[in-house]
């Protein structure tokens, strides 16, 4: 009888699931779900390197002493394909099947927050970079999730501060093109217009578009009609690349072009070649910064991968180190103890001082970087600059 067959099959299956998965009792397992493919793959590769390098370093030193025994750390990385629901389910399986004692975060608010929600509910500490503070705080009051990154307020005010610091002359007209994801919505929808108004600028056009938009014809046409000298864009790399190309083919050539998020990774400059020249992007790290190990990290990355460094190697490296230090400080594989240890972090890492406030955030200051001859050069503030600002940008201002 079919029902009997079904019953026995189900019973068999259930009994298999009743046994706990075999966890190795002599290694420390941490997990991370990051975008190794999909639109944010450009960030994922740096994150992976940053996380893995931190783990490699600590294992070279013998591992972490836990319960009196020195144990190696094993990092399990899953690809979440830039899909928040995959981040969530990856986090679930890493916790349930792999039995990770703590997690490292993904990249960009949508993904990080999806994973962090799962970790929070399962009471698993999660340390992340690549997640702006306001977007992080807007989700909920966190207990187990911790972020090390910049604040959107700093990011939004940076271009305006730079323009006033250097006395750049423009027609004071601004066009805003941002995606309607969590951070694009805040930066493009609220903060940029606020800062513009405060600085006496006139926002002639604002568009918030879906994150996966392919055609930008209409908003470019309208931005062009507004005749803005300053164009501020917030979009992920594929969209930023497409937008830059379509701007060029539509003849929209501003004096100052900022492309947040999208213009960060090397793939932006590689995909656009000459068109990337002069594009500005908010940055928070450069090998030249006076932080412990900064220059060495960049050199190591270049020699190990043969690629140009990106700031994302630094924040992810720091996040991983913070977690590993917390595990060492806790001295045992107890999630609560590790979480308490993370809260007490107060040390200088490769991104600067990391100390968490009551909202579980640790702020990194912002700089402005500009793509020049295929390299990202820090152009503001003056005391951090490694190059001179190109203004107006090539081909801009007509």
């Amino acid at each position: 009888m079919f029902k009997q067959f079904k019953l026995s099959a189900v019973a068999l299956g259930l009994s298999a699931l009743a046994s706990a998965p075999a966890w190795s009792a002599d290694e420390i397992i941490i997990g991370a779900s990051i975008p190794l493919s999909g639109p944010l793959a450009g960030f994922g590769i740096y994150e992976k390197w940053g996380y893995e390098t931190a783990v490699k370093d600590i294992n070279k030193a013998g591992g972490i002493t836990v319960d009196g025994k020195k144990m190696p750390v094993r990092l399990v990385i899953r690809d979440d394909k830039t899909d928040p629901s995959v981040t969530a389910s990856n986090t679930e399986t890493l916790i349930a099947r792999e039995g990770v004692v703590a997690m490292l975060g993904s990249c960009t608010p949508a993904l990080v927050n999806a994973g962090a929600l799962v970790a929070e509910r399962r009471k698993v500490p999660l340390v992340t970079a690549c997640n702006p503070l306001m977007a992080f705080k807007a989700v909920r009051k966190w207990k187990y999730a911790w972020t090390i990154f910049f604040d959107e307020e700093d990011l939004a005010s940076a271009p305006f501060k730079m323009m006033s610091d250097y006395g750049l002359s423009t027609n004071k007209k601004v066009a805003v093109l941002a995606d309607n994801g969590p951070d694009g919505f805040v930066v493009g929808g609220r903060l940029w217009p606020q800062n513009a108004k405060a600085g006496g600028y006139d926002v002639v056009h604002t568009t918030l578009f879906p994150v996966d938009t392919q055609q930008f014809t209409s908003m470019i046409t309208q931005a062009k009609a507004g005749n803005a000298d300053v164009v501020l864009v917030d979009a992920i790399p594929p969209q930023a690349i497409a937008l830059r190309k379509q701007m060029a083919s539509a003849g929209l050539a501003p004096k100052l072009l900022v492309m947040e998020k999208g213009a960060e990774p090397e793939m932006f400059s590689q995909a656009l070649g000459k068109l990337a020249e002069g594009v500005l992007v908010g940055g928070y790290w450069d090998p030249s910064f006076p932080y412990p190990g900064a220059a060495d990290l960049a050199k190591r990355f270049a020699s190990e991968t043969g690629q140009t460094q990106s700031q994302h190697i630094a924040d992810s490296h720091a996040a991983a180190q913070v977690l590993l230090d917390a595990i060492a400080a806790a001295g045992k594989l107890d999630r609560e103890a590790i979480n308490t240890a993370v809260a007490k972090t107060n040390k200088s890492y490769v991104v600067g001082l990391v100390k968490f406030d009551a909202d579980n955030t640790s702020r990194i200051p912002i700089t402005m970087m500009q793509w020049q001859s295929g390299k990202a050069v820090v152009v503001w503030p003056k005391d951090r600059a490694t190059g001179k600002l190109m203004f107006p940008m090539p081909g801009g201002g007509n």
Partner: protein
Amino acid sequence: MSAIVSRAPVPAVPTASPSAQRLWPWATLPVLFIVLAASVPLLSDYGLEIAFRLLLLITLAEAWNLLAGYGGLVSLGTASFFGLGAYTLTKLLSDPSDSIILAMLAGGVVAALMALLVSRAVFRLRGLYFTVGTLALAEALRLFMVNYRGLGGASGLFLAVDPPAQREMVWLALGLLAFATLVVTLATATRFSILLRAVRDDEDAANQIGIRPFRIKLIAFLLASTLTGMAGALQALKVGTVEPYGTFGIQWTVAVLSVVIIGGQGLRLGPAVGAVFLVALSELLAEYPALQLALTGAILIGVIRLAPLGLVGLVQRLLARKKGGTR
């Protein structure tokens, strides 16, 4: 319009007398559910994960099987009802004292309302136009949700309350499946199934003999969408956040479709067997999700060509042949 199988399948229930035949679902199913519910505390964390996924998938598959397998209405719009249920629950649950069950029911109701709204337009389309129409509808709804900021736009919404523990979630899923099983068993064991089959096989002829095809199709559509919406609500409760790409995305439609066709569409056991098979496959190939999906597609094609009644149909055929051989 006929489904992939042009003839109604003959259930391979063997020698029991007709009245016993009709009674055994009512006897064994409740026992089965009680046994399953009792065994939940025995499961490990990992087991609970798998159990929840499996139960939810079977619920969705039962609903789709009713609509497409028994009713011949091959819909590619599962995601829209799923998403509506998910968003509804997320919007409604704002306080820990709010009833989860009511929120789930609300999710089902909202999904049903959408089904009602589009039914008049969508049922004018026959066969493949119906299928493409539902696909377009699902995609249009997803795009609308991406753009409409009132419901969070691309960022979506976060659940204001903390979801219950894993064990409770599995019991909720089991409860939902029990409800779905009840609904589908009623639909398939009563006269309704005959009416549905008549409409599926030849709508115009059914009309001629006095059956109202629109009403029959609508009932099936409403039942299926309600169950799908409730499942979506439960998933939203589990994940704690909804957003258009994951919640209204086509991956749910693909999963359900694969489960039912591979399991055996139009057959009572098809959804369960198909779901177990696919969840097992996805766990085996957990490290290679793209490979798993590609393999699912290949199996789908193979099943359509070689075993149109799916795994259950295959087993039925083998058993029937064996019985025929021993006679």
